[in-house]
Protein backbone atom coordinates (compact mmCIF):
# COMPACT_ATOMS: atom_id res chain seq x y z
CA UNK A 1 0.00 0.00 0.00
CA UNK A 2 1.51 3.30 -1.10
CA UNK A 3 0.21 6.84 -1.10
CA UNK A 4 -0.77 6.58 -4.78
CA UNK A 5 -2.95 3.47 -4.51
CA UNK A 6 -4.75 4.25 -1.24
CA UNK A 7 -4.01 7.78 0.02
CA UNK A 8 -6.59 8.00 2.82
CA UNK A 9 -5.72 4.73 4.55
CA UNK A 10 -2.00 5.40 4.01
CA UNK A 11 -2.19 8.69 5.88
CA UNK A 12 -4.56 7.23 8.49
CA UNK A 13 -2.21 4.31 9.22
CA UNK A 14 0.74 6.68 9.49
CA UNK A 15 -1.16 8.93 11.91
CA UNK A 16 -2.24 5.87 13.88
CA UNK A 17 1.43 4.90 14.25
CA UNK A 18 2.30 8.41 15.41
CA UNK A 19 -0.54 8.64 17.94
CA UNK A 20 -0.04 5.17 19.43
CA UNK A 21 3.68 5.98 19.58
CA UNK A 22 2.71 8.82 21.95
CA UNK A 23 1.00 6.28 24.18
CA UNK A 24 -2.56 7.08 23.13
CA UNK A 25 -5.31 4.46 23.35
CA UNK A 26 -6.22 3.01 19.95
CA UNK A 27 -9.92 3.92 20.15
CA UNK A 28 -9.16 7.55 21.00
CA UNK A 29 -6.58 7.72 18.22
CA UNK A 30 -9.20 6.37 15.77
CA UNK A 31 -11.69 9.08 16.74
CA UNK A 32 -8.96 11.74 16.48
CA UNK A 33 -7.95 10.54 13.01
CA UNK A 34 -11.60 10.57 11.93
CA UNK A 35 -11.90 14.14 13.21
CA UNK A 36 -8.79 15.21 11.27
CA UNK A 37 -10.24 13.57 8.16
CA UNK A 38 -13.59 15.32 8.64
CA UNK A 39 -11.87 18.67 9.10
CA UNK A 40 -9.89 18.10 5.90
CA UNK A 41 -13.03 17.13 3.97
CA UNK A 42 -15.11 20.05 5.28
CA UNK A 43 -12.27 22.52 4.63
CA UNK A 44 -11.99 21.19 1.09
CA UNK A 45 -15.74 21.61 0.65
CA UNK A 46 -15.63 25.20 1.92
CA UNK A 47 -12.65 26.11 -0.30
CA UNK A 48 -14.50 24.61 -3.25
CA UNK A 49 -17.51 26.67 -2.22
CA UNK A 50 -15.43 29.87 -2.51
CA UNK A 51 -14.41 28.80 -6.00
CA UNK A 52 -18.05 28.02 -6.85
CA UNK A 53 -19.07 31.60 -6.03
CA UNK A 54 -16.64 32.78 -8.68
CA UNK A 55 -17.73 30.08 -11.17
CA UNK A 56 -21.39 30.94 -10.64
CA UNK A 57 -20.86 34.66 -11.15
CA UNK A 58 -18.68 34.15 -14.22
CA UNK A 59 -21.09 31.67 -15.84
CA UNK A 60 -24.23 33.74 -15.15
CA UNK A 61 -22.42 36.73 -16.66
CA UNK A 62 -21.69 34.76 -19.82
CA UNK A 63 -25.29 33.55 -20.05
CA UNK A 64 -26.49 37.14 -19.76
CA UNK A 65 -23.92 38.48 -22.23
CA UNK A 66 -21.85 40.27 -19.60
CA UNK A 67 -18.22 39.95 -18.51
CA UNK A 68 -18.74 39.20 -14.84
CA UNK A 69 -16.20 39.99 -12.10
CA UNK A 70 -12.88 40.87 -13.74
CA UNK A 71 -11.24 43.50 -11.52
CA UNK A 72 -9.94 41.64 -8.46
CA UNK A 73 -7.01 39.49 -9.56
CA UNK A 74 -6.70 37.63 -12.86
CA UNK A 75 -10.21 36.95 -14.30
CA UNK A 76 -11.63 38.28 -11.04
CA UNK A 77 -10.65 35.05 -9.24
CA UNK A 78 -10.22 36.89 -5.92
CA UNK A 79 -13.70 38.38 -6.07
CA UNK A 80 -15.21 35.76 -3.68
CA UNK A 81 -12.55 36.59 -1.06
CA UNK A 82 -13.52 40.25 -1.31
CA UNK A 83 -17.16 39.15 -0.95
CA UNK A 84 -16.34 37.19 2.20
CA UNK A 85 -14.53 40.15 3.77
CA UNK A 86 -17.51 42.35 2.92
CA UNK A 87 -19.97 39.88 4.45
CA UNK A 88 -17.84 39.58 7.59
CA UNK A 89 -17.69 43.32 8.28
CA UNK A 90 -21.38 43.95 7.52
CA UNK A 91 -23.53 44.87 10.49
CA UNK A 92 -25.56 41.96 11.78
CA UNK A 93 -29.16 43.15 12.22
CA UNK A 94 -31.60 41.02 14.20
CA UNK A 95 -35.19 42.21 13.73
CA UNK A 96 -37.31 43.06 16.76
CA UNK A 97 -39.52 40.16 17.72
CA UNK A 98 -37.35 37.51 16.12
CA UNK A 99 -36.98 34.21 17.95
CA UNK A 100 -33.24 34.65 18.64
CA UNK A 101 -32.17 31.03 19.15
CA UNK A 102 -33.96 29.62 16.12
CA UNK A 103 -33.09 32.69 14.07
CA UNK A 104 -29.37 32.12 14.67
CA UNK A 105 -29.49 28.33 14.34
CA UNK A 106 -31.19 28.35 10.92
CA UNK A 107 -28.14 29.39 8.79
CA UNK A 108 -25.95 26.92 10.68
CA UNK A 109 -28.41 24.09 9.97
CA UNK A 110 -28.67 25.16 6.35
CA UNK A 111 -24.94 24.76 5.73
CA UNK A 112 -24.67 21.68 7.95
CA UNK A 113 -27.33 19.82 5.96
CA UNK A 114 -25.20 20.26 2.85
CA UNK A 115 -21.91 19.40 4.53
CA UNK A 116 -23.48 16.19 5.87
CA UNK A 117 -23.92 14.98 2.30
CA UNK A 118 -20.15 15.15 1.84
CA UNK A 119 -19.71 12.38 4.41
CA UNK A 120 -20.84 9.78 1.88
CA UNK A 121 -19.75 11.36 -1.41
CA UNK A 122 -17.55 8.73 -3.14
CA UNK A 123 -14.68 10.60 -4.81
CA UNK A 124 -12.73 7.48 -5.78
CA UNK A 125 -12.67 3.75 -4.92
CA UNK A 126 -10.83 4.41 -1.64
CA UNK A 127 -11.41 8.14 -1.13
CA UNK A 128 -14.68 8.72 0.71
CA UNK A 129 -15.77 9.72 4.18
CA UNK A 130 -17.75 6.67 5.13
CA UNK A 131 -19.57 3.94 3.22
CA UNK A 132 -23.07 3.83 4.71
CA UNK A 133 -25.17 0.84 3.72
CA UNK A 134 -28.27 3.10 3.72
CA UNK A 135 -26.58 5.87 1.71
CA UNK A 136 -29.60 6.88 -0.37
CA UNK A 137 -31.92 7.18 2.63
CA UNK A 138 -29.18 9.27 4.26
CA UNK A 139 -29.24 11.67 1.28
CA UNK A 140 -33.00 12.14 1.75
CA UNK A 141 -32.62 12.56 5.52
CA UNK A 142 -29.89 15.20 5.18
CA UNK A 143 -32.06 17.02 2.64
CA UNK A 144 -34.87 17.10 5.20
CA UNK A 145 -32.59 19.03 7.59
CA UNK A 146 -32.20 21.64 4.84
CA UNK A 147 -36.00 21.96 4.61
CA UNK A 148 -36.13 22.27 8.39
CA UNK A 149 -33.58 25.09 8.35
CA UNK A 150 -35.70 27.01 5.85
CA UNK A 151 -38.88 26.76 7.88
CA UNK A 152 -36.87 27.72 10.99
CA UNK A 153 -35.58 30.84 9.22
CA UNK A 154 -39.00 31.76 7.90
CA UNK A 155 -40.78 31.24 11.20
CA UNK A 156 -38.22 32.94 13.43
CA UNK A 157 -37.71 36.11 11.36
CA UNK A 158 -41.03 37.64 12.37
CA UNK A 159 -41.68 38.77 8.81
CA UNK A 160 -44.62 38.09 6.52
CA UNK A 161 -42.53 37.65 3.41
CA UNK A 162 -40.21 35.23 5.19
CA UNK A 163 -43.12 33.16 6.47
CA UNK A 164 -44.76 32.94 3.06
CA UNK A 165 -41.44 32.06 1.44
CA UNK A 166 -40.88 29.32 3.99
CA UNK A 167 -44.33 27.80 3.41
CA UNK A 168 -43.84 27.81 -0.33
CA UNK A 169 -40.44 26.21 0.03
CA UNK A 170 -41.71 23.47 2.28
CA UNK A 171 -44.64 22.74 -0.04
CA UNK A 172 -42.21 22.51 -2.94
CA UNK A 173 -39.55 20.46 -1.20
CA UNK A 174 -41.85 17.86 0.29
CA UNK A 175 -43.69 17.54 -3.03
CA UNK A 176 -40.58 16.99 -5.10
CA UNK A 177 -39.15 14.60 -2.57
CA UNK A 178 -41.59 11.92 -3.83
CA UNK A 179 -40.35 11.68 -7.44
CA UNK A 180 -36.79 12.03 -6.16
CA UNK A 181 -37.15 9.11 -3.79
CA UNK A 182 -38.78 7.01 -6.51
CA UNK A 183 -35.97 7.96 -8.89
CA UNK A 184 -33.52 6.90 -6.16
CA UNK A 185 -35.27 3.52 -6.01
CA UNK A 186 -34.32 2.78 -9.62
CA UNK A 187 -30.51 2.71 -9.09
CA UNK A 188 -31.14 0.80 -5.84
CA UNK A 189 -33.15 -1.78 -7.72
CA UNK A 190 -30.59 -2.09 -10.53
CA UNK A 191 -27.54 -2.19 -8.24
CA UNK A 192 -29.12 -4.21 -5.44
CA UNK A 193 -27.67 -1.92 -2.76
CA UNK A 194 -28.37 1.45 -1.15
CA UNK A 195 -24.69 2.28 -0.56
CA UNK A 196 -23.38 4.89 -2.99
CA UNK A 197 -20.03 3.09 -3.40
CA UNK A 198 -21.81 -0.12 -4.34
CA UNK A 199 -23.97 1.76 -6.84
CA UNK A 200 -20.89 3.23 -8.54
CA UNK A 201 -19.13 -0.14 -8.61
CA UNK A 202 -22.10 -1.89 -10.23
CA UNK A 203 -22.28 0.63 -13.08
CA UNK A 204 -20.39 -1.33 -15.72
CA UNK A 205 -23.02 0.21 -17.99
CA UNK A 206 -24.00 3.66 -16.74
CA UNK A 207 -27.50 3.67 -15.28
CA UNK A 208 -28.42 6.57 -17.53
CA UNK A 209 -28.45 4.03 -20.38
CA UNK A 210 -30.61 1.63 -18.37
CA UNK A 211 -32.97 4.34 -17.17
CA UNK A 212 -32.72 7.66 -19.06
CA UNK A 213 -36.17 8.72 -17.85
CA UNK A 214 -35.18 8.00 -14.25
CA UNK A 215 -32.12 10.22 -14.67
CA UNK A 216 -34.31 12.98 -16.11
CA UNK A 217 -36.80 12.73 -13.23
CA UNK A 218 -33.96 12.82 -10.73
CA UNK A 219 -32.37 15.91 -12.32
CA UNK A 220 -35.70 17.78 -12.40
CA UNK A 221 -36.61 16.93 -8.83
CA UNK A 222 -33.06 17.70 -7.68
CA UNK A 223 -33.33 21.19 -9.20
CA UNK A 224 -36.65 21.63 -7.38
CA UNK A 225 -35.12 20.39 -4.12
CA UNK A 226 -32.32 22.93 -4.54
CA UNK A 227 -34.92 25.68 -4.96
CA UNK A 228 -33.19 26.95 -8.08
CA UNK A 229 -34.93 28.53 -11.05
CA UNK A 230 -37.38 27.52 -12.59
CA UNK A 231 -38.42 26.37 -9.09
CA UNK A 232 -37.11 29.35 -7.11
CA UNK A 233 -40.54 30.33 -5.75
CA UNK A 234 -39.11 30.47 -2.25
CA UNK A 235 -37.12 33.59 -3.11
CA UNK A 236 -39.22 35.05 -5.91
CA UNK A 237 -37.96 38.63 -5.71
CA UNK A 238 -40.91 40.07 -7.64
CA UNK A 239 -43.46 38.60 -5.20
CA UNK A 240 -41.95 38.10 -1.75
CA UNK A 241 -38.68 40.06 -2.12
CA UNK A 242 -36.23 37.41 -0.92
CA UNK A 243 -38.36 34.82 0.82
CA UNK A 244 -37.11 33.07 3.92
CA UNK A 245 -33.75 34.88 4.17
CA UNK A 246 -35.15 38.41 3.86
CA UNK A 247 -34.19 39.41 7.42
CA UNK A 248 -30.70 37.92 7.32
CA UNK A 249 -27.69 40.15 6.85
CA UNK A 250 -23.94 39.77 6.75
CA UNK A 251 -22.42 36.39 7.37
CA UNK A 252 -25.77 34.76 8.22
CA UNK A 253 -26.98 35.48 4.71
CA UNK A 254 -23.57 34.38 3.48
CA UNK A 255 -24.07 30.96 5.05
CA UNK A 256 -27.41 30.50 3.26
CA UNK A 257 -25.80 31.54 0.00
CA UNK A 258 -22.79 29.26 0.49
CA UNK A 259 -25.12 26.41 1.43
CA UNK A 260 -27.17 26.88 -1.73
CA UNK A 261 -24.15 26.83 -4.05
CA UNK A 262 -22.53 23.88 -2.32
CA UNK A 263 -25.87 22.04 -2.36
CA UNK A 264 -26.09 22.49 -6.12
CA UNK A 265 -22.56 21.18 -6.58
CA UNK A 266 -23.17 18.24 -4.24
CA UNK A 267 -26.30 17.29 -6.14
CA UNK A 268 -24.27 17.54 -9.35
CA UNK A 269 -22.01 14.97 -7.71
CA UNK A 270 -24.94 12.72 -6.79
CA UNK A 271 -26.39 12.91 -10.31
CA UNK A 272 -23.05 11.66 -11.59
CA UNK A 273 -22.81 9.00 -8.87
CA UNK A 274 -26.31 7.59 -9.35
CA UNK A 275 -26.72 7.69 -13.11
CA UNK A 276 -23.44 8.67 -14.80
CA UNK A 277 -20.96 6.22 -13.30
CA UNK A 278 -19.49 8.44 -10.56
CA UNK A 279 -15.69 8.22 -10.80
CA UNK A 280 -15.82 5.69 -13.65
CA UNK A 281 -14.93 6.91 -17.11
CA UNK A 282 -14.24 4.14 -19.65
CA UNK A 283 -11.41 2.53 -17.67
CA UNK A 284 -9.64 5.81 -16.94
CA UNK A 285 -10.36 5.33 -13.23
CA UNK A 286 -7.89 2.42 -13.12
CA UNK A 287 -4.95 4.85 -13.19
CA UNK A 288 -5.34 5.38 -9.47
CA UNK A 289 -7.62 7.04 -6.96
CA UNK A 290 -6.27 10.55 -7.64
CA UNK A 291 -7.25 10.33 -11.32
CA UNK A 292 -10.64 8.86 -10.32
CA UNK A 293 -11.23 11.72 -7.89
CA UNK A 294 -10.40 14.27 -10.59
CA UNK A 295 -12.84 12.53 -12.96
CA UNK A 296 -15.53 12.62 -10.29
CA UNK A 297 -15.01 16.32 -9.54
CA UNK A 298 -15.07 17.20 -13.24
CA UNK A 299 -18.33 15.28 -13.69
CA UNK A 300 -19.84 16.98 -10.63
CA UNK A 301 -18.76 20.36 -12.00
CA UNK A 302 -20.33 19.50 -15.36
CA UNK A 303 -23.69 18.69 -13.76
CA UNK A 304 -23.38 21.80 -11.60
CA UNK A 305 -23.00 23.69 -14.85
CA UNK A 306 -26.08 21.94 -16.29
CA UNK A 307 -28.09 23.03 -13.22
CA UNK A 308 -26.84 26.60 -13.75
CA UNK A 309 -27.72 26.38 -17.44
CA UNK A 310 -31.30 25.47 -16.55
CA UNK A 311 -31.40 28.16 -13.87
CA UNK A 312 -30.40 31.00 -16.16
CA UNK A 313 -32.44 29.85 -19.17
CA UNK A 314 -35.89 28.89 -17.87
CA UNK A 315 -38.21 31.48 -16.28
CA UNK A 316 -39.90 30.88 -12.93
CA UNK A 317 -43.09 28.76 -12.84
CA UNK A 318 -46.26 29.66 -10.97
CA UNK A 319 -46.97 27.85 -7.70
CA UNK A 320 -50.06 25.99 -8.97
CA UNK A 321 -48.15 24.94 -12.09
CA UNK A 322 -45.25 23.82 -9.96
CA UNK A 323 -47.44 21.62 -7.75
CA UNK A 324 -49.50 20.29 -10.67
CA UNK A 325 -46.33 19.43 -12.59
CA UNK A 326 -45.13 17.39 -9.65
CA UNK A 327 -48.30 15.64 -8.50
CA UNK A 328 -50.03 15.15 -11.84
CA UNK A 329 -47.04 14.45 -14.05
CA UNK A 330 -43.73 13.70 -12.35
CA UNK A 331 -44.99 11.47 -9.52
CA UNK A 332 -47.23 9.18 -11.64
CA UNK A 333 -44.52 8.97 -14.29
CA UNK A 334 -41.91 8.04 -11.70
CA UNK A 335 -44.12 5.28 -10.26
CA UNK A 336 -44.97 3.88 -13.70
CA UNK A 337 -41.30 3.94 -14.58
CA UNK A 338 -40.40 2.11 -11.38
CA UNK A 339 -42.96 -0.60 -12.09
CA UNK A 340 -41.84 -1.01 -15.71
CA UNK A 341 -38.19 -1.12 -14.67
CA UNK A 342 -38.91 -3.75 -12.03
CA UNK A 343 -40.95 -5.90 -14.42
CA UNK A 344 -38.54 -5.73 -17.38
CA UNK A 345 -35.54 -6.21 -15.12
CA UNK A 346 -37.11 -9.35 -13.62
CA UNK A 347 -38.21 -10.78 -16.96
CA UNK A 348 -34.72 -10.28 -18.43
CA UNK A 349 -32.94 -11.56 -15.31
CA UNK A 350 -31.46 -14.53 -17.17
CA UNK A 351 -30.25 -12.51 -20.17
CA UNK A 352 -26.72 -11.14 -20.62
CA UNK A 353 -25.87 -7.63 -19.37
CA UNK A 354 -26.07 -6.22 -22.89
CA UNK A 355 -29.57 -7.57 -23.57
CA UNK A 356 -30.68 -6.52 -20.09
CA UNK A 357 -29.54 -2.95 -20.76
CA UNK A 358 -31.09 -2.92 -24.25
CA UNK A 359 -34.43 -4.17 -22.90
CA UNK A 360 -34.53 -1.56 -20.14
CA UNK A 361 -33.54 1.21 -22.54
CA UNK A 362 -36.30 0.15 -24.95
CA UNK A 363 -38.83 0.04 -22.09
CA UNK A 364 -37.83 3.61 -21.18
CA UNK A 365 -38.25 4.75 -24.76
CA UNK A 366 -41.73 3.19 -24.88
CA UNK A 367 -42.75 4.82 -21.57
CA UNK A 368 -41.40 8.17 -22.74
CA UNK A 369 -43.23 7.91 -26.06
CA UNK A 370 -46.51 6.97 -24.36
CA UNK A 371 -46.10 9.88 -21.93
CA UNK A 372 -45.66 12.33 -24.79
CA UNK A 373 -48.72 10.89 -26.60
CA UNK A 374 -50.88 11.18 -23.45
CA UNK A 375 -49.72 14.77 -22.93
CA UNK A 376 -50.50 15.58 -26.55
CA UNK A 377 -54.00 14.12 -26.29
CA UNK A 378 -54.57 16.02 -23.03
CA UNK A 379 -53.42 19.29 -24.58
CA UNK A 380 -55.69 18.72 -27.60
CA UNK A 381 -58.69 18.08 -25.34
CA UNK A 382 -57.93 21.19 -23.32
CA UNK A 383 -57.65 23.32 -26.44
CA UNK A 384 -61.04 22.02 -27.66
CA UNK A 385 -62.60 22.78 -24.28
CA UNK A 386 -61.26 26.34 -24.42
CA UNK A 387 -62.48 26.90 -27.97
CA UNK A 388 -66.07 25.80 -27.28
CA UNK A 389 -68.02 28.21 -25.04
CA UNK A 390 -68.24 27.07 -21.42
CA UNK A 391 -71.39 25.10 -20.65
CA UNK A 392 -72.75 25.17 -17.10
CA UNK A 393 -74.00 21.57 -17.38
CA UNK A 394 -70.49 20.26 -18.00
CA UNK A 395 -69.19 22.27 -15.08
CA UNK A 396 -71.80 20.78 -12.77
CA UNK A 397 -71.11 17.23 -13.93
CA UNK A 398 -67.47 17.55 -12.92
CA UNK A 399 -68.28 18.19 -9.29
Amino acid at each position, binding site marked *: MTFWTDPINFVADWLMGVFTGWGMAEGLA*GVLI*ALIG*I*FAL*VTFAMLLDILLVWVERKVVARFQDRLGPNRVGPFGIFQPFADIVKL*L*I*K*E*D*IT*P*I*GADKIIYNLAP*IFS*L*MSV*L*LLWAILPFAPKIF*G*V*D*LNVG*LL*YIVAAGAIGTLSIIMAGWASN*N*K*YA*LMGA*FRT*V*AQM*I*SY*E*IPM*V*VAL*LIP*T*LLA*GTMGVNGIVESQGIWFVVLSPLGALIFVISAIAELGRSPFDLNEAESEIVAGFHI*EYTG*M*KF*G*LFYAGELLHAFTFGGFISVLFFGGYRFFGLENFGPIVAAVIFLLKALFFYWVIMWVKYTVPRVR*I*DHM*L*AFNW*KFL*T*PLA*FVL*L*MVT*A*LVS*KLLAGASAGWHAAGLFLANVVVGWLTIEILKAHARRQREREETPAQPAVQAAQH
Partner: protein
Amino acid sequence: MQNPWIYIGLFILVGMMIPAMALMIARLIAPRKPNPIKQSTYECGIETVGDSWVQFKAQYYIFALVFLVFDVETVFLFPWAVAFDKLPLFAALEGILFILILISGLVYAWRKGALEWM
Protein backbone atom coordinates in the same frame (compact mmCIF):
# COMPACT_ATOMS: atom_id res chain seq x y z
CA MET B 1 -13.95 3.14 12.01
CA GLN B 2 -15.93 0.18 13.27
CA ASN B 3 -19.24 2.00 13.41
CA PRO B 4 -19.95 4.43 10.55
CA TRP B 5 -22.57 6.24 12.65
CA ILE B 6 -19.87 7.48 15.06
CA TYR B 7 -18.30 9.09 12.00
CA ILE B 8 -21.65 10.67 11.04
CA GLY B 9 -22.06 11.96 14.60
CA LEU B 10 -18.61 13.56 14.48
CA PHE B 11 -19.49 14.98 11.07
CA ILE B 12 -22.61 16.63 12.48
CA LEU B 13 -20.49 18.23 15.23
CA VAL B 14 -17.87 19.55 12.81
CA GLY B 15 -20.54 20.55 10.31
CA MET B 16 -22.20 22.71 12.95
CA MET B 17 -18.93 24.07 14.29
CA ILE B 18 -17.56 25.45 11.01
CA PRO B 19 -20.60 27.69 10.24
CA ALA B 20 -20.83 28.65 13.93
CA MET B 21 -17.18 29.72 13.79
CA ALA B 22 -17.89 31.91 10.75
CA LEU B 23 -20.75 33.58 12.66
CA MET B 24 -18.51 34.04 15.70
CA ILE B 25 -15.79 35.77 13.64
CA ALA B 26 -18.43 38.01 12.07
CA ARG B 27 -19.71 38.87 15.56
CA LEU B 28 -16.23 39.90 16.65
CA ILE B 29 -15.39 42.22 13.75
CA ALA B 30 -18.77 43.45 12.51
CA PRO B 31 -20.03 46.78 13.86
CA ARG B 32 -23.14 46.73 16.03
CA LYS B 33 -25.20 49.92 16.37
CA PRO B 34 -28.81 48.81 16.64
CA ASN B 35 -31.69 51.27 16.60
CA PRO B 36 -35.47 50.69 16.44
CA ILE B 37 -35.81 51.81 12.80
CA LYS B 38 -33.02 49.54 11.64
CA GLN B 39 -34.37 46.57 13.54
CA SER B 40 -37.96 46.97 12.43
CA THR B 41 -39.51 44.27 10.25
CA TYR B 42 -38.70 44.80 6.58
CA GLU B 43 -41.73 45.27 4.40
CA CYS B 44 -40.50 47.41 1.49
CA GLY B 45 -40.62 50.59 3.54
CA ILE B 46 -44.18 50.23 4.79
CA GLU B 47 -44.80 49.70 8.49
CA THR B 48 -46.06 46.23 9.34
CA VAL B 49 -49.75 46.05 10.11
CA GLY B 50 -50.87 43.45 12.61
CA ASP B 51 -49.17 40.20 13.49
CA SER B 52 -46.35 38.90 11.30
CA TRP B 53 -47.39 35.29 11.79
CA VAL B 54 -50.21 35.54 9.29
CA GLN B 55 -52.77 32.91 8.38
CA PHE B 56 -51.78 30.67 5.53
CA LYS B 57 -53.64 28.50 3.09
CA ALA B 58 -55.06 25.23 4.35
CA GLN B 59 -53.97 23.76 1.01
CA TYR B 60 -50.44 23.37 2.38
CA TYR B 61 -51.79 20.88 4.93
CA ILE B 62 -53.46 18.76 2.27
CA PHE B 63 -50.26 18.54 0.25
CA ALA B 64 -48.35 17.65 3.39
CA LEU B 65 -50.84 14.84 4.10
CA VAL B 66 -50.55 13.41 0.59
CA PHE B 67 -46.77 13.68 0.93
CA LEU B 68 -46.81 11.73 4.21
CA VAL B 69 -48.56 8.78 2.59
CA PHE B 70 -45.92 8.46 -0.10
CA ASP B 71 -43.01 9.17 2.21
CA VAL B 72 -43.91 6.36 4.58
CA GLU B 73 -44.40 4.00 1.66
CA THR B 74 -40.82 4.50 0.43
CA VAL B 75 -39.60 2.98 3.68
CA PHE B 76 -41.30 -0.23 2.56
CA LEU B 77 -40.11 0.03 -1.03
CA PHE B 78 -36.39 0.44 -0.30
CA PRO B 79 -35.91 -3.05 1.22
CA TRP B 80 -37.85 -4.51 -1.70
CA ALA B 81 -35.52 -2.74 -4.16
CA VAL B 82 -32.35 -3.79 -2.30
CA ALA B 83 -33.35 -7.48 -2.28
CA PHE B 84 -34.76 -7.32 -5.81
CA ASP B 85 -32.10 -9.55 -7.44
CA LYS B 86 -32.80 -12.39 -5.03
CA LEU B 87 -36.59 -12.17 -5.28
CA PRO B 88 -38.67 -14.54 -7.41
CA LEU B 89 -40.95 -13.09 -10.08
CA PHE B 90 -43.95 -13.41 -7.76
CA ALA B 91 -42.37 -11.15 -5.10
CA ALA B 92 -41.52 -8.57 -7.76
CA LEU B 93 -45.18 -8.62 -8.88
CA GLU B 94 -46.25 -8.18 -5.27
CA GLY B 95 -44.11 -5.05 -5.05
CA ILE B 96 -45.75 -3.75 -8.22
CA LEU B 97 -49.19 -4.48 -6.72
CA PHE B 98 -48.19 -2.45 -3.66
CA ILE B 99 -47.23 0.50 -5.88
CA LEU B 100 -50.54 0.15 -7.77
CA ILE B 101 -52.48 0.42 -4.50
CA LEU B 102 -50.55 3.59 -3.72
CA ILE B 103 -51.25 5.01 -7.16
CA SER B 104 -54.96 4.35 -6.61
CA GLY B 105 -54.61 6.54 -3.50
CA LEU B 106 -53.05 9.27 -5.61
CA VAL B 107 -55.86 8.94 -8.17
CA TYR B 108 -58.43 9.22 -5.36
CA ALA B 109 -56.78 12.40 -4.03
CA TRP B 110 -56.68 13.73 -7.59
CA ARG B 111 -60.39 13.00 -8.21
CA LYS B 112 -61.30 14.60 -4.88
CA GLY B 113 -59.53 17.77 -5.98
CA ALA B 114 -56.88 17.64 -3.26
CA LEU B 115 -54.19 18.35 -5.83
CA GLU B 116 -55.79 21.56 -7.08
CA TRP B 117 -54.25 24.84 -5.92
CA MET B 118 -57.21 27.11 -5.23
